[in-house]
């Protein structure tokens, strides 16, 4: 039972990360019907920016522990949002009216570009996050030891998801995003600046991905330049699992995939951990391509 709860909380923590990344995929897909292949690499960039801010500027020395983390997260949010904005302007906007293949290839190209840019800047080795900023307490819940960092990760990802949900459902800008996702032409006629909405979506999604990147750095203590692909593919699986284009679906899908993967690697085989996620992806696309919560899929797939 102890093992089960350990794996469950671990799965929820990792699932929270998948969910945060999946939100970026699903929001972009919602408004543009485009899979942003470079999203996983924006997540990597977030993780590496966090690394730079923590180490090079010695932030952990200047501000007390939790303050430093919050400060770094805010800076990463701003920087990654800027990169997302530029990405859309350079690689996607010129292709808005061309074929789907062109946009997909351009997205792939951007992904390859980012991944190798990170490699050239930071080197091919993995980088280690400073140890002292990470809370090392272990909480005891009903006799089971759970690291505090795990609880904090679950709480932080849930808080961000709720904030995003509130933002899209209760604010004017959120309504504009939803309207653009349903029908771009009609949204334009209603006076919504669709280009600005798309730019905004390309800032919110990567910002959440960047936060997820820093969280991975804090949780596992190390980051490497190829991790964007694996996390990106898994987060994409999570988005499909929940129903792509559907914001609550991405949250549910992410948490579910994290738990499936954690339990699968504990009880089936750790060596097949990555394969489990890809198998889930293939199965869900074959059996129920709309995902768990997805009812609004316009095209037949």
């Amino acid at each position, binding site marked *: 039972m102890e093992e089960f709860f350990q794996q469950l909380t671990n799965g929820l923590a990792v699932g929270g990360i998948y969910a945060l990344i999946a939100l970026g995929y699903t929001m972009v897909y919602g408004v543009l019907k*485009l*899979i942003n292949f470079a999203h996983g690499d924006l997540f990597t960039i977030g993780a590496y920016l966090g690394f730079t801010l923590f180490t090079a500027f010695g932030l952990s020395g200047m501000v007390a522990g939790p303050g430093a983390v919050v400060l770094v997260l805010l800076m990463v949010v701003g920087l990654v949002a800027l990169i997302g904005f530029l990405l859309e302007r*350079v*690689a996607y906007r*010129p*292709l808005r009216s*061309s*074929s*789907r*293949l*062109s*946009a*997909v*290839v*351009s997205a*792939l*190209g*951007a*992904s*390859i*570009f*980012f*991944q*190798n*840019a990170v*490699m*050239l800047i930071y080197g091919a080795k993995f980088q280690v996050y400073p140890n002292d900023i990470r809370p090392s307490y272990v909480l005891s819940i009903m006799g089971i030891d759970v690291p505090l960092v795990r609880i904090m990760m679950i709480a932080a990802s849930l808080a961000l998801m709720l904030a995003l949900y509130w933002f899209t459902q209760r604010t004017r800008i959120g309504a504009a995003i939803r309207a653009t996702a349903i029908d771009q032409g009609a949204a334009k006629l209603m006076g919504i600046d669709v280009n600005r909405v798309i730019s905004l979506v390309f800032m919110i999604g990567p910002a959440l991905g960047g936060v997820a990147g820093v969280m991975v750095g804090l949780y596992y203590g190390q980051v490497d330049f190829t991790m964007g*692909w694996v996390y990106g*593919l898994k987060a*994409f699986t999570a988005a*499909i699992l929940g129903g792509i284009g559907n914001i609550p679906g991405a949250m549910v899908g992410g948490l579910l995939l994290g738990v499936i993967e954690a339990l699968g690697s504990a009880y089936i*085989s750790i*060596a*097949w951990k*990555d*394969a489990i996620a*890809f*198998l889930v*992806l*293939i199965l869900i*696309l*074959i059996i129920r*391509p709309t995902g768990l919560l997805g009812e609004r899929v316009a*095209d*037949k*797939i």
Partner: protein
Amino acid sequence: MTVSRTTSYAGIAVVVAVLPLLLDPYWTDVFVSIGLYSVLALSLNIILGQAGLFHMGHAAFYAVGAYVTAIANTMWGVPVLWAMPFAGLAAALFAMLVARPIIHLRGDYLLIVTIGIVEIVRIALINNVFGLTGGANGIFGISRPTLFGFKIAKPVHFYYLVWAYVACSVLLFRRLENSRFGRALNYIKEDDTAAEGSGVNTASYKLWAFVLGAFWAGMTGTIYAAKMTIISPESFSFWESVVLFAIVILGGGSNRGVLLGAFLLIGLPEFFREFASARMLAFGLAMVVMMIFRPQGMLPPMPRFYKLPERIRCVTGKDGGAAAAQVGGEA
């Protein structure tokens, strides 16, 4: 085929045949790699270029072929070149099994699933599936191929083997392109629904495109295994698939374009060895820029031309025009 075209092909053949006399072993080896990637990209071109199916897991079929060869050779002592058709058949069978359930997926979903497949194959190879694949270290000690008693071992020997194989592939794929099968694939690429409506069995043609592409990739796997004498899961990583995908897309989907793409993407970086690590960076940038300014690729396939039957030519005048060409196209 006009005379000038025949002479130009003959010219290329002579250049390819004479080239190794001017090259040192290192550059011969580079050209062997270009040849291997050319064949792989040509086989991917059936799926991606001709049928327009976003397939990014070609390394999986290649890997199946190479591993079948390696296992047959090291465990049962089958001569390498004898294993070639079986490697192709194994890859084709594998393609049939995995492609059947996913063939109906649309564009980018297919892309993601094929990425998933190539990753699962790699993980399976690392985990020493069936106890045959040797885990992360792979299989070593694959023997050199012999052809009519001649042992193929030096880079020059492989150069001729690989480029003869490229020539055969180009000829066969050219025939395929101009066949009923090739026309059906192009129709599916242009408009899936219209093709289905005109009585083209799209699911079956798509599946056969996968099977044929995989067959050829599997056979190429044999030559790769024979050349390297050692294979490991890392040789068939997802990046190999990306490189092949980029060759076809940037080349433009015609056979000439694919060959040009292979030269540029595999051969060109050898000239800039000091920037080797920036190679993929340039790849990515080239893909973005290409899609914005020339989405059809460097050398897209030329439009199909058909000779008009005599009686139609009389009706429409000397130059048939588009309408008559369409009539001819159906003939």
